[in-house]
């Protein structure tokens, strides 16, 4: 017989793991509330001073506020668009007998099989040379970034959402059809509410990808659509790195993600275990 390990050991293990996860964030926060001088003269992990000027500098900086705004708009629009498109695609893949649908499903993911950097040059050319209407270019536009992230997130979202959709019994669609529902009503009244956990997971993962993405944003934006992650890199200059300001931006960057996570946390837990147990 297996020996039961003590509950105390379990608690201790979880506390240690949680601390290990939270430690870098704590460290980041400590750096963000110390003046630059303290960081190098007396490096310490103790939270002994509260130097709020780093935060004041960031919040007071209109450019940084613009970057943050861009990030929020791009990530949220992208996540909403991708989730909606993935939902409709998965509904079609799950419910209709499309010729070669398993091939379509498989090949959608191929653009995630190479590093994003591979696509940098073609995208740069497309954004600066091809998608140009008069003065307007896709380059350095929020629309451009939303569409760009769609190409990377949509396949991934389809793969994430498909099991959820397949897990919703087809009989429910049929029952609703016989009950008098149109296809749209079946989707809206039956499938959509039941797919909510999967949609929440898809939304958050897509949002986090767009929020954290650096390489493409750094290459395909310059000022108008510049995001906060690329904004961070501006504090690494030839004359030095403004660690305090960078840390405070990073802490602020964490806040929207935390808010979104806490809002959909319940669905995420349900979504990640969806279909694991037969109802």
């Amino acid at each position, binding site marked *: 017989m297996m020996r039961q390990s003590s509950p105390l050991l379990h608690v201790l293990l979880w506390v240690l793991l949680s601390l290990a996860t939270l430690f870098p964030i704590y460290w980041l926060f400590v750096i963000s509330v110390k003046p630059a001088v303290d960081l190098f003269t007396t490096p310490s992990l103790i939270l002994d001073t509260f130097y709020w000027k780093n935060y004041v500098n960031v919040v007071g900086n209109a450019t940084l506020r613009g970057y943050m705004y861009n990030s929020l708009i791009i990530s949220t629009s992208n996540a909403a668009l991708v989730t909606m498109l993935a939902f409709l695609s998965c509904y079609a893949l799950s419910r209709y007998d499309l010729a070669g649908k398993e091939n379509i499903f498989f090949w959608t993911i191929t653009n995630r099989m190479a590093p994003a950097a591979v696509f940098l040059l073609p995208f740069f050319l497309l954004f600066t040379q091809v998608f140009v209407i008069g003065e307007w270019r896709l380059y350095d536009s929020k629309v451009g970034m939303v569409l760009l992230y769609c190409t990377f997130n949509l396949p991934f979202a389809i793969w994430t959402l498909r099991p959820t959709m397949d897990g919703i019994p087809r009989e*429910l669609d049929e*029952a609703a*059809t*016989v*009950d008098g529902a*149109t296809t749209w009503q079946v989707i809206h009244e039956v499938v959509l*509410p039941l797919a909510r956990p999967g949609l929440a997971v898809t939304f958050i993962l897509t949002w986090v990808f767009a929020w954290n993405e650096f390489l493409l944003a750094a290459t395909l934006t310059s000022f108008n659509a510049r995001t906060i992650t690329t904004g961070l890199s501006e504090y690494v200059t030839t004359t030095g790195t403004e660690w305090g300001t960078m840390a405070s931006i990073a802490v602020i960057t964490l806040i929207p993600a935390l808010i979104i996570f806490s809002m959909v946390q319940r669905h995420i837990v349900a979504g990640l275990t969806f279909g694991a147990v037969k109802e």
Partner: protein
Amino acid sequence: MAEVAVRNVIKKYGHLQVIHGVNIEIADGEFVVLVGPSGCGKSTLLRMIAGLESISGGEVLIGGRVVNDVLPKDRDIAMVFQNYALYPHKTVAENMGFPLKLKGRPKEEIAAKVRKAAEILALEKLLDRYPKQLSGGQRQRVAMGRAIVRDPQVFLFDEPLSNLDAKLRVTMRVEIKELHQRLKTTTVYVTHDQIEAMTMADKIVVMRDGHVEQIGAPLELYDRPANVFVAGFIGSPAMNFVRGRIEARDGGAAFVSDHGTVLPVPAGTAPRAEPVAYGIRPEHIDVRDGGISATISVLEPTGSETQIFAHLGGDAINAAVRERISARPGETVPLLIDPARVHLFDDKSGARI
């Protein structure tokens, strides 16, 4: 309410034909059961009536109107599915009221109709619960409630009792029959269970491999099965079949099995050169003096009756008798066959002679 007609209906999946020109006429208010083994096409036919499967050929009429190209929502039917198909995110009341909500009926009317249906089905106390909080029988009642609030022209049931335990199945069977007697709505009911078919139907349609084998009232099918398949499918325990020929004997005729056993035939039966299948239901065999001596191989007493599995020479035979049998396996009992209850079928075609 309405009559339903299925005329020369065909179903093909690519080159594979699964329904071969089926004809069924269902009168207004009639309870018709489609019965047959798995894969016989009964559920496919029901789904074609519902509009969930396209019709490859022929016509389906509901209330005199051809509905081949009519959407399910416009056929004025209600369907109860095998796995109930309740919406898990809606309460019992919302599930039952959903068809009316889709029709855009006022909330007060929906609430009143749901309440009335809930009263009929004893669901009043469960209206605020979700499907996962209900037992199998309760879920089945909610599915029926969802069907009756619409007051449809036709009810369709697709093996609705298959997921219930044996005891609950009997209870629900009675409830569905009571409901039909009360509402008198035309009903098409699919099952693979011939007991369900016999006990519930006004008319049974026996299907096999996409063909209709026989249509008739339950006792008509029991008393005069059209062929070997129907004879074997309807009735429990199943009919005994022995292969052999009808030969002239003692101024009349008698059946002689391939193993040489001689069995009585109905009066007026003429001898035949072609081989026949001799059918006798277990319940039409008695243990009585003057019967043919059979060796018992297994006895199954159930209290109300005893099943005897025995051998008549080289032929296996099963008898179900009311008496309690004191004999033991290996011993012999006299089995008396009532010739008037014997069924004879052509051995090659299986058709009734």
